[in-house]
């Protein structure tokens, strides 16, 4: 079949960085092409070039064999390319229908916005996506998964030939992913060319027909998905063997460090009790919205509980703020890196030391040498990829931002560390580094709590698993003999099958 879109020798340079160097890509109608690569391999840059946000420094873009230039995002849209971005850019204060049709609203004969048509078409689109969302709802009242559906509807509202999905499943629960795949199959059947970016190999093997692998801004390999094994793809992507995606070093588990009893919140969670022991990794599993992040943020002092007690090392503590929590030796690595984790406009070094300014200062004066020393230590320990420690964190790739954020927390020398979806949206190389690191921390006697929605990660890493459902504890399981089915059943409430 003739290619719909071709990239030839595309290069893009930023000061000090070669983001893309002579990249090749071919998309064919009715086929899903998986774009595989570590964080920082150039995937996001490529998406930005395809959508007219960046202009390539070299190379050409061909659509049905004709050379095209995208000077602006509008130009890419006119060429019928549409993208669903990793972090959806939508407007909280507008309705779902307005979000879907913003920028290309149908007009009536007076040149005014045709609201009736917008609402009707939005409803039809949402219906075709099986999305239980009303077109008149305000976006701010929707959940993350629902917002994602709106973003997909927005992408489909323009009649595009090329659909780019940049990690569309990162924020979705199991069922929503299934829904998305059904939509994908339908798009495929209608002859659209789809570029699918994901870090989840199970998904890629299921939905993709072709693959392209990027590494360090170059095309490393391309071909039919059916001809490539998982191992080969990982090898191409990382450039080395990753023998074990979820390494779990055996650790001696000691006494309870953190004891939580009857912990409740007026709206988010109810009657949660657990012990977190020295050297242990406790997995917390549940669907999106089960109250896992809310529980951890409350324990970290961001919100106040209505009942319950917390003890660290056997002494009851009252944690009223994040500062109290850090002092007590408890830290929380938030899920939303850009919003809660890092100060994106500030340099790496200032981010690493932000939680432990006391340690790099004397009588309130910051000691620059100590500060850089600390930052260098964590940069080295995490194999950070950056051009200098004074580079703003916002210019790093997602995985490297996460390394900075985790480094910030370790610099406070905690006893208990909560990690909220620590490998969300991170490539496999950084992922295994984070996992190795988590077992290392546990081995050193830290108590680790890991929120994760990825079953292999939970099953591979956790010594015990707490399952939450709708703000309550839905089960507590030991590592031995634990299966994915058990966890999913507990999380979705099918407890009858368990007992």
């Amino acid at each position, binding site marked *: 079949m003739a290619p719909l879109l071709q990239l030839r020798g595309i290069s893009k340079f930023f000061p000090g960085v070669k983001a893309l160097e002579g990249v090749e890509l071919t998309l064919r109608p009715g086929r899903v092409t998986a774009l595989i690569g570590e964080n920082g391999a150039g995937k996001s840059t490529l998406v930005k070039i395809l959508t007219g946000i960046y202009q390539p420094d070299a190379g050409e873009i061909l659509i049905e064999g004709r050379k095209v230039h995208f000077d602006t995002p509008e130009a890419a849209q006119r060429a019928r390319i549409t993208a669903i971005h990793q972090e959806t850019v939508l407007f909280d204060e507008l309705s779902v229908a307005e979000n879907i049709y913003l920028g290309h609203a149908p007009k009536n004969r007076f040149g005014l916005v045709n609201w009736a048509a917008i609402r009707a078409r939005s409803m039809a689109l949402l219906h075709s996506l099986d999305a239980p969302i009303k077109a008149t709802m305000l976006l701010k009242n929707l959940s993350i998964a629902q917002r994602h559906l709106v973003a997909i509807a927005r992408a489909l509202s323009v009649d595009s030939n090329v659909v780019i999905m940049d990690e569309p499943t990162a924020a979705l629960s199991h069922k929503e992913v299934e829904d998305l795949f059904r939509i994908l199959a339908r798009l495929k059947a209608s002859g659209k060319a789809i570029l699918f970016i994901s870090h989840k190999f199970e998904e890629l093997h299921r939905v993709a027909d072709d693959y392209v692998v990027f590494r360090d801004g170059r095309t490393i390999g391309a071909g039919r998905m059916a001809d490539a094994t998982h191992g080969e793809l990982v090898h191409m992507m990382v450039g080395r063997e990753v023998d074990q995606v979820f390494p779990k070093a055996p650790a001696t588990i000691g006494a309870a460090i953190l004891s939580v009893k009857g912990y409740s919140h007026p709206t988010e969670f109810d009657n949660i009790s657990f012990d977190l022991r020295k050297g242990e990794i406790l997995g917390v599993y549940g669907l999106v919205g089960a109250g896992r992040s809310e529980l951890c943020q409350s324990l970290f002092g961001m919100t106040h509980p209505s009942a319950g007690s917390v003890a660290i090392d056997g002494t009851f503590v009252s944690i009223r703020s*994040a500062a109290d929590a850090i002092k007590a030796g408890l830290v929380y690595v938030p899920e939303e890196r850009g919003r*809660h*984790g890092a100060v994106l*406009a*500030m340099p790496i070094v200032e981010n690493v030391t932000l939680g432990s*300014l006391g340690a790099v200062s004397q009588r309130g004066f910051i000691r620059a040498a100590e500060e850089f020393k600390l930052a260098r230590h964590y940069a*080295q*320990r995490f194999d950070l990829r950056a051009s200098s420690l*004074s580079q703003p964190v916002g210019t790093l790739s997602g995985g490297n931002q996460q390394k900075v954020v985790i480094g910030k927390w370790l610099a406070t020398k905690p006893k208990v560390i909560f990690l909220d979806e620590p490998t969300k949206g991170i490539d496999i190389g950084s992922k295994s*580094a984070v996992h190795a690191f988590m077992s290392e921390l546990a081995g050193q006697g830290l108590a680790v709590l890991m929120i994760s929605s990825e079953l292999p990660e939970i099953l591979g890493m956790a010594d015990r698993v707490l399952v939450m459902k709708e703000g309550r504890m839905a089960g507590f399981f030991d590592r031995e003999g634990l299966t994915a089915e058990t966890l999913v059943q507990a999380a979705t409430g099918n407890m009858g099958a368990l007992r």
Partner: protein
Amino acid sequence: MTMHAHAPDSAPTFRAIPDRLTSPARNFLGSWEALLLLVAIAIFGANSLASPYFLDINNLSDATFNFTEKAIVALAMAFVVIAGEIDLSVGGIIAIASTAMGAAAQAGAGTAELVVVGLAVGAVCGLFNGLLVARIGLPSIVATIGTMSFYRGISYVVLGDKVYSAYPTDFAFFGQGYTWGVISFEFTSFVLLAILAGILLHRTTFGRAVRAIGNNPFAARFSGLRVERIRFIVFLMTGLAAGLASVMLTSRLGSTRPSIALGWELDIVTIVVLGGINIQGGAGTIPGVVIAALVMGLVTSGLGLLNVPGIIMSIVIGAMLICVIALPILLRRLLHKWRSA
């Protein structure tokens, strides 16, 4: 503390990351502050060409009086703006503090008491602003527009169309006195406070926290910074600075009317913005603010020497602000176009 990763593949691939790519000196050359300094030098040159009296040492000394009070408040305002807030009540604080000093002077207070009253009233007003913003959570622009008229309103109620002018003779020192030769007390205070503010913003954990909060208050809170407390402190700082400015201004004028320092808040914000402080918070330097204050002072004194009326002066200052801020943006755009063509 050395730790060895268990992952077999992390060590050999590590590349050392330099602390900085460019030296601080090189950074300065391309900075906003360097540009402002050029502007200041140009205006200084133009002034000395335009008027033969400009370079006179007494004239230069006199010229400092018309901006130091505003500049002192601008130093504190820099912290507020970098923290992502704004304080529009500083003019009102100057008025209410001056009124309080006038009343105290009439009741027979001595010079030392007057200074304490001025600073204390400034501090209390700042604390009240801090309470509204940090504790109650009002947006600072709304809260301080409110307190702006509230503070000045009290001044109007107390004074009506009366004037307080019964200040002790030695009170005049703060606004008219000299510490050394032609160097005024006001200017000395400004220089010392500027150094203090520079150290506080650029060398201490407090300054770092202010900048982090202005950039991303959520991440700052998640990092264990006491966001409310720091917001509170920055409003206390502008309150105190306004109190000090009130002492100086009242001492210099020798009288208090409720219209004292009317509209100063915008002049002060102008200095801060001209100094390269991001009005949305998170970035900016004290040297920038100091140079911007000098630029403002030079422009007003130069125009004053040329007998340019005040109304025209405000047009010139407005135009200058727009030009200085728009020029780099336009130049960058032009450069970008030229490069991509």
